[in-house]
């Protein structure tokens, strides 16, 4: 299958995603320039991590106006899988493709470290291959990853099973200490109504190879591949 990886000015994990998709998982991959309007036949779109437009003003605030985002929105509406990682998650919430917002970490500091998280639903193309309830280890790298939404929205997300991942301790318990950035309900990733758009703060692209000491990130990519090829 073919992954399209959007390059915004200031993206900096586009090569990381490309490497995993192409060289680790042996799938097709291409870069999509933010000023273009075509997805070049991609079966899945990735909005990679980084600092689009420097993250000046607010993370993702300016990227949402890039021409490609109209095309991405249409693709998502038609049910195409869209995965926003880190900055990509921020862009998805700013664009309204996902509810809520990501605000500054409670500690005010950028945080780069390994965390554990729990898969909350396997009912999405990004999580279908992950054993239910499994605790994964993944790195994060962000300064603004604190998930916020109003009470009504949070309730809906919970009820509709759209919380995809939550930060937890190594045994799967949700605790104050295992929530690195103060996210409400310990949310690490959410889905849209239809389940085909996921925003995700951790970096599966940084843990998909044995030489990096952790391959848990593969599960997310492999889930999308299975879901797409199963069609």
């Amino acid at each position: 299958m073919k992954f399209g990886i959007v390059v915004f000015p200031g993206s900096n994990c586009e090569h990381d995603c490309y490497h995993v998709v192409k060289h680790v998982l042996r799938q097709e991959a291409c870069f999509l320039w933010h000023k273009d309007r075509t997805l070049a036949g991609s079966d899945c779109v990735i909005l990679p991590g980084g600092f689009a437009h420097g993250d000046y003003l607010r993370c993702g605030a300016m990227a949402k106006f890039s021409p490609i985002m109209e095309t991405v929105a249409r693709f998502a509406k038609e049910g195409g899988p869209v995965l926003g990682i880190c900055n990509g998650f921020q862009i998805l919430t700013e664009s309204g493709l996902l509810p809520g917002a990501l605000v500054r970490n409670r500690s005010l500091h950028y945080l780069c470290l390994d965390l554990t998280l729990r898969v909350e639903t396997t009912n999405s193309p990004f999580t279908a291959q992950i054993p239910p309830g499994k605790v994964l280890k993944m790195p994060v790298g962000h300064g603004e990853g604190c998930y916020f939404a109003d009470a009504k929205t949070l309730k809906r997300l919970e009820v509709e099973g759209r919380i995809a991942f939550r930060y937890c301790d190594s045994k799967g318990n949700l605790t104050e200490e295992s929530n690195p950035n103060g996210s409400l309900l310990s949310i690490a990733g959410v889905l849209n109504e239809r389940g085909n758009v996921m925003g995700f703060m951790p970096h599966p692209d940084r843990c998909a190879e044995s030489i990096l000491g952790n391959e848990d990130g593969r599960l997310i990519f492999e889930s999308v591949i299975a879901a797409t090829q199963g069609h």
Partner: protein
Amino acid sequence: MSENTEPAVDLNLALAHGLSSEEYEKVRAILGRTPSYTELGIFSLMWSEHCSYKSSRIHLKRFPTTGPQVLQGPGENAGAIDIGGGLAAIFKMESHNHPSYVEPYQGAATGVGGILRDIFTMGARPIASLNSLRFGSPDHPRMRYLLGGVVGGIAGYGNCVGVPTVGGEVAFHPSYNGNILVNVLNLGIAHAGRIFRGQARGPGNSVFYVGSRTGRDGIHGASLLASASFEADSQTKRPTVQVGDPFAEKLLLEACLELMKTDAIIGIQDMGAAGLTSSSVEMAGRGGTGIDLDLDRVPVREEGMTPYEMMLSESQERMLVIVRRGSEEKVRQIFRKWDLEGVPVGEVSAGGSLRVHFRGKRVADIPVKPIADGAPLLKRPMERPAWQDEVGRLDLTGLKDVVHPPKALKGLLGSLNLCSREWIYRQYDHMVRTNTVVRPGSDAAVIRIKGSPHALALTTDCNGRYCYLDPRSGARIAVAEASRNLACSGAVAQALTDCLNFGNPERPEVMWQFSECVDGIGEACRALEIPVISGNVSFYNETEGKGIFPTPTIGMVGIIEDARLAMRSFFCKEADVVVLLGETGEELGGSEYLSQAHRLEAGPLPVLDLEREEAVQLACIEAIGEGLVSSAHDCAEGGIAVALAESCFHPEGMLGAEVTLPAGRRLDAILFGETQSRILLSLPKFNLGKLEKICQDREAPFSLLGAVGGSRLKIHVGEEAVINTALTELKRPWAEALPAWMV
């Protein structure tokens, strides 16, 4: 200010620009007339300490700079080595000390920006940064603010540009109270056959200005800020610090790398300190040409900028590119794509002069060769300080031996100089680009090279106290320790870069320290066959006549043949045996322990035998390369006891050990002395024989200390159990010291 309202140039104005009267006479002789105001500005920048290295050049010549791996030695924007597979590693370290003291966040941020440009200007994609930091006394009221700001600035800039910060070092000492140090190393990867240089060749080729617009940033920053000491009353005279724009830098990086894939570039150089002036003069100088500049075409962001200001501006995120005639449109196109300025501002000329035009007038006309090569070369007086002998002595009689070793160990582990740096490095994105095989926290960071079986190991090291007590030995030890850190990751050292941070060079004792350190580095480099390929000198780290500890920071890069064998410093297997390569002497002089437990900064440094050092390192590298070893950690500040404790602190699960050290005269010296050339290894017992054989062949001393296991650290000295402490109890002070202090 129009030209006719510019101040008249005379000796006083030249002196105010930091030129000496002899230098001013030389300027007049070169021009055959009195310089214009703009010309005076240009000379004062080019001949400042910062640009001309006038005090240090005669000394730096003593460094070994060659080797079969060296593709580019000192003299360019950065140095380059061959790392196999047609690839080159390009690296350099630079200081941003003074600006970081004035405005820690922006000072440190723009320091990162500057060194990144030095790397990608040569055609390399930056893939890793390290930072070496020195702060004053923890009690000093500004230090928290400074550390928080510096770390924030390095993170803010580096993370945004997407270059991982994978390692570094931090130390505290009151000598840095008025002058903190912020040294940043960056390394990039390029194709060995496509390294770009800063040279203007081919008269008629275009000179392009690319990047951000020019403002009145830091005019006279390089020459004044980095070439004069701070005095208490100079607060108001301090020029403004620049604000960094990492987003613009990221665009500039991508645009330059894209342009470098074409054949449009003849030469390229970043406009860092001394901006348009140094980039044009140096490129013309290296190319043996001249440059004509038309300042009316320089993109500016402020109104009414004068030629003087444009030539002296230190606005960040800019480059000067010599473009092959006929390729101009390509350049414009690429920079338009990235929403950056990319405009021709002049031409390479045959005449050998830098000619600057503004509003139809020629405002400067300077022969390039004499200003570039004719910069003053000073042989500053040197004198060994009278107090040097005294601080080198240590009388241990009457100094009480350690009474409660576990308490002493916990004290060391919980001190700001030795505690965990995680509070710092978790603010740095150290994983972006997905190459970081060994993350910060081990002896050296390891970066894999995609598409190659090799990995690179990187480290920075320097012990300022050592260099104060004995500059020559201290500098030798810095080189040896850096190389030992690489060896512990399994890497063979290839080359080094340095950042020589010293006080006021006009003081003979500072110059002596400098010269001694240069010789120390040179000696160690020759013995270990590690060339110096780039570096930086920062003088005037001095406040009110009091200089910092001499701090010649060493940044070193090594190669690991098989990236999969990269080694970390943590015990990781129950029942592994613990072995010491090297031997523990009883050397307390200069140690962290003496300084902390007895407030004593004195004594002869531990002896460094470079032959022994090499043997130990080679044995370690060979053992790792053969896959015999589970962990390797060097013994440095805090001695073997601290090294053992650190080895127990595996980030994914602690593991204890029980060891026995040979008894001696002083327990404190055995546990906490800093004898050089020691590496702690852990390995499966069945590999012991092979390791022993390697050590015999290499003539590296070898001793079996004990075994890994359990949840306590137990150290026996001779018959006596001196430490038997739960790891949780040891780790708490180590892990909490920095965050607790920062609160």
